[in-house]
C-alpha cells in the first residue's frame, strides 16, 4: 500500500509537466506484485537449482523495464552516432542482451563486484554510470567517464572493473577480485563474465582451477550469444555445454532472455559463493541483434530470419512488458510513458556527447602513474613534451 501511495505521489508530482493521461493512469489500481513461472535451469554437479517461480513487485518491474529500455535505446543511439562517424574505432553493442546486465544487477548488491569483456556498455550503466558519461566516453569527450582516454572498451565505475579489450584476460582478473573479497572477509562476490568465444581461452581454465582450489567467491558467467564474432558455437567448441566446461565447478544453464530467470539464477549463484562453497558457473543463453561490432553487419554468418525470430519471440523487453501488462502490474500507457522519458534521456545524453569538447591536448600525458609527482612525457619528437600528473 505504501509503495502504491509512493508511486501515486511520484506520478502526481510530475503531473504538471506530463500530459493529462498520466494523471488518469495514477488513479488505476495496479497489483503490488505477481508470481511468475520461470524456466528451470539445466544443472551440472548441483542437486538443486534456482526456484522455478518468482515474485516480481510492480516497483522492481518498472525499474527493470526502464533499465532495459535505457540500455536498448542507448545502444541504438550508439549505432546511430557510429554511422555518423561521431563514434570511432571499436563499438560492440549489446542490444538483445539487456536481460543479462539488468537481471544480474538485480541479483547482487552494489558492494559486489563485476568485470566483463568489451561488450560492456550495458554493464557500465547497470553498475551505476549515467548514459551521459557513457556516450561521451564513446564519442571521446572530456565529459566521458574516462575523460575520453579509454573509449568503448575501457569504462570503469565503483566495483566495476571494465571493459577489457583482450578476450579472456578479464577472467583471471575476476578470480583475483574474488580472491580479494575472500582475503578481506567481507562476504562479497565477483561476477566474472566472458562470451562463448572467450570460453575456449586457456587462461579461463587456469582461473577455474585456482578458483576451485582456493574456493574463491567467483561466479563465472558465460554470456552465450551463439556467435564468437563470425564463428558459431558449433564451429568453435568441441563441447557447447558451456555451463559444464568448468568440470569440477558446479554449473547452471539459464535463459538469458528472461530478466527474472537471470535474477534468480544470479541470486542462487551468489548465495552459493557467500556460503563459502567456492566458485560456480552460469551460462546465460542470450542473443545479440547487432553484429559482433559496428564493423560487422552480422548477417554473413547468420540469417535475417533467425534474428527476426529472436526479436519477435524472445525479446527481453517485450517479455517483461507482456508479463507486467498481463498481470496488471503496469499499463501499456504507463510503459509508453517510460519509453518517452528514456528516449528524452538518451537524446539529451547524445546532445551532450556530441557537443562536449574533446579532452585538452595538455592532458595527453596525464595518468601514466598513480600517486606520483609531476614529470615529463615524450611526444612525437624530442622537443614535444607533455606534462604528466597523476
Amino acid at each position, binding site marked *: 500500500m505504501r509503495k502504491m501511495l509512493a508511486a501515486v505521489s511520484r506520478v502526481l508530482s510530475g503531473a504538471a509537466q506530463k500530459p493529462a493521461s498520466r494523471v488518469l493512469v495514477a488513479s488505476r489500481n495496479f497489483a503490488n506484485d505477481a508470481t511468475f513461472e520461470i524456466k528451470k535451469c539445466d544443472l551440472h554437479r548441483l542437486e538443486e537449482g534456482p526456484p522455478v517461480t518468482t515474485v516480481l513487485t510492480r516497483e522492481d518491474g518498472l525499474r527493470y523495464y526502464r533499465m532495459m529500455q535505457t540500455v536498448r535505446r542507448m545502444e541504438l543511439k550508439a549505432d546511430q552516432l557510429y554511422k555518423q562517424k561521431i563514434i570511432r574505432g571499436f563499438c560492440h553493442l549489446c542490444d538483445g542482451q539487456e536481460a543479462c546486465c539488468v537481471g544480474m544487477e538485480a541479483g547482487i548488491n552494489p558492494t559486489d563486484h563485476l568485470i566483463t569483456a568489451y561488450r560492456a556498455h550495458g554493464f557500465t550503466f547497470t553498475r551505476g554510470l549515467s548514459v551521459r558519461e557513457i556516450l561521451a566516453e564513446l564519442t571521446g569527450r572530456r565529459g566521458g567517464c574516462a575523460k575520453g582516454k579509454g573509449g568503448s572498451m575501457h569504462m570503469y565505475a565503483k566495483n566495476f572493473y571494465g571493459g577489457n579489450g*583482450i578476450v579472456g584476460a578479464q577472467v583471471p582478473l575476476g578470480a583475483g577480485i574474488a580472491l580479494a573479497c575472500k582475503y578481506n572477509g567481507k562476504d562479497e562476490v565477483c561476477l566474472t563474465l566472458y562470451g562463448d568465444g572467450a570460453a575456449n581461452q586457456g587462461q579461463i581454465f587456469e582461473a577455474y582451477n585456482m578458483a576451485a582450489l582456493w574456493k574463491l567467491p567467483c561466479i563465472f558467467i558465460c554470456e552465450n550469444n551463439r556467435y564468437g564474432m563470425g564463428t558459431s558455437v558449433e564451429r568453435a567448441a568441441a563441447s557447447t555445454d558451456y555451463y559444464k566446461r568448468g568440470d569440477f565447478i558446479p554449473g547452471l544453464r539459464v535463459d538469458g532472455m528472461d530478466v527474472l530467470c537471470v535474477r534468480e539464477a544470479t541470486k542462487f549463484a551468489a548465495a552459493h559463493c557467500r556460503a563459502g562453497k567456492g566458485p560456480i558457473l552460469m551460462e546465460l543463453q542470450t542473443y545479440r541483434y547487432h553484429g559482433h561490432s559496428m564493423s560487422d553487419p552480422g548477417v554473413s554468418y547468420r540469417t535475417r530470419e533467425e534474428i527476426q525470430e529472436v526479436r519477435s519471440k524472445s525479446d527481453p523487453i517485450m517479455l517483461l512488458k507482456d508479463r507486467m501488462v498481463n498481470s496488471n502490474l503496469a499499463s501499456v500507457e504507463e510503459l509508453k510513458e517510460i519509453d518517452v522519458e528514456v528516449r528524452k534521456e538518451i537524446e539529451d545524453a547524445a546532445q551532450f556527447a556530441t557537443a562536449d569538447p574533446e579532452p585538452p591536448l595538455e592532458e595527453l600525458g596525464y595518468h601514466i602513474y598513480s600517486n606520483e609527482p609531476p614529470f615529463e612525457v615524450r611526444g612525437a619528437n624530442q622537443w614535444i613534451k607533455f606534462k604528466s600528473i597523476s
Partner: protein
Amino acid sequence: MAVVSALVRRPLEQVSGLLRRRFHRTAPAALQVTVRDAINQGMDEELERDEKVFLLGEEVAQYDGAYKVSRGLWKKYGDKRIIDTPISEMGFAGIAVGAAMAGLRPICEFMTFNFSMQAIDQVINSAAKTYYMSAGLQSVPIVFRGPNGASAGVAAQHSQCFAAWYGHCPGLKVVSPWNAEDAKGLIKSAIRDNNPVVMLENELMYGVAFEFPPEAQSKDFLIPIGKAKIERQGTHITVVAHSRPVGHCLEAATVLSKEGIECEVINLRTIRPMDVETIEASVMKTNHLVTVEGGWPQFGVGAEICARIMEGPAFNFLDAPAVRVTGADVPMPYAKILEDNSVPQVKDIIFAIKKTLNI
C-alpha cells in the same frame, strides 16, 4: 687506557676480561648480507607493515621459494599471505592483477622472467595500461619480481633478459638491482609504490654477499625508483650498467685504474623511468660513454641510452661515439665456452673502454 676503564666499569669481569686479552677493541665486523637475504628481508618487513601485501607464485610458500628467496615467509605468515600457485602463469598473474585492482598489494613472483612471457598480456594490457585507460580511476599496485637474464648453463629458453621489453612500456616501472642494498631498497619501494613495478633480479647474484650500510638495516630503508647511483667516481669515461654487469664494470675499473684510467661507474638501478640526467651529467664531465648490459644489443637498454644522450646536452661533450657492450646477438648456447662468450666479460668491457678512449 681502554683496559683500565674496562676494569673500572666491570670489576666482576676484570679477570675474565684480562684472560680474554681484550686490549684492542676492534670495530664490529661490517654486516654482510646476500642479495637473497636482502630481498627476503625487504618482503618480510613490508608483509609485516601492511596487511594488504601478499606473495604468490610457484613454490614460494612450502618450498621456501625456488631459489629460497622467500625462505621462512610461509612459516611466519601462513597460507593467506604466502600462496603457492599451480603452474599457470597467465592465470595467476591475472589473478594477482585483479587482486591489486580490488585494493590488495600483491607480489607476483615469476620463477624466472622467461615464464613471464606466458603472462605478459596481463602485465602490459591489464596492469601497465589501466591507470591511463581509466583516466586515473583504477590503479594497480602490484609488483612482479623474479630472476631475469642469463644464469649458468640453463641454455636459450631460460636465459633471456627482459629489461628492454618491459622498459619499453609506459605505465610500468622497471627496476634492476645489483647489490644487496639495491635489492632491499628497491623491493620495498616497489611494494609501497601504487603502480605496477617489474623487479628484474639476477639468479647468479642471489648468493653474493655485500656490505650492508647501517641505513639499509632500517625497516624504512627505501631506494627511490628512477634514480641511478654513481658507484665509483671517475674522470676519463662514464660506464653505465644495470644488474650483475655493474660488478663487472667495477672490476674493469679496478684493472684500468692501475693503468691510470679512472672510470666513473653508474649503477642504473631503474630501467624505467630512466635517470638520464645522472648519465648526462657524468658524460659532460668525462666526455666518453660505454653502456654495459646482459641483454641482446638490438633495441636494448644501451641503445636507448645512446639515443637519449644524442638528444640531450651531453652530445656536444662526447669526444667519441658512445659504445655498447651487450650479450651476443644469439639465443644463449649451452656449452660453457660458448655461453661465456655470449655474455659481456670484464675483458670485453675493458676492450670497449680502451677503444672509446682510443688507447
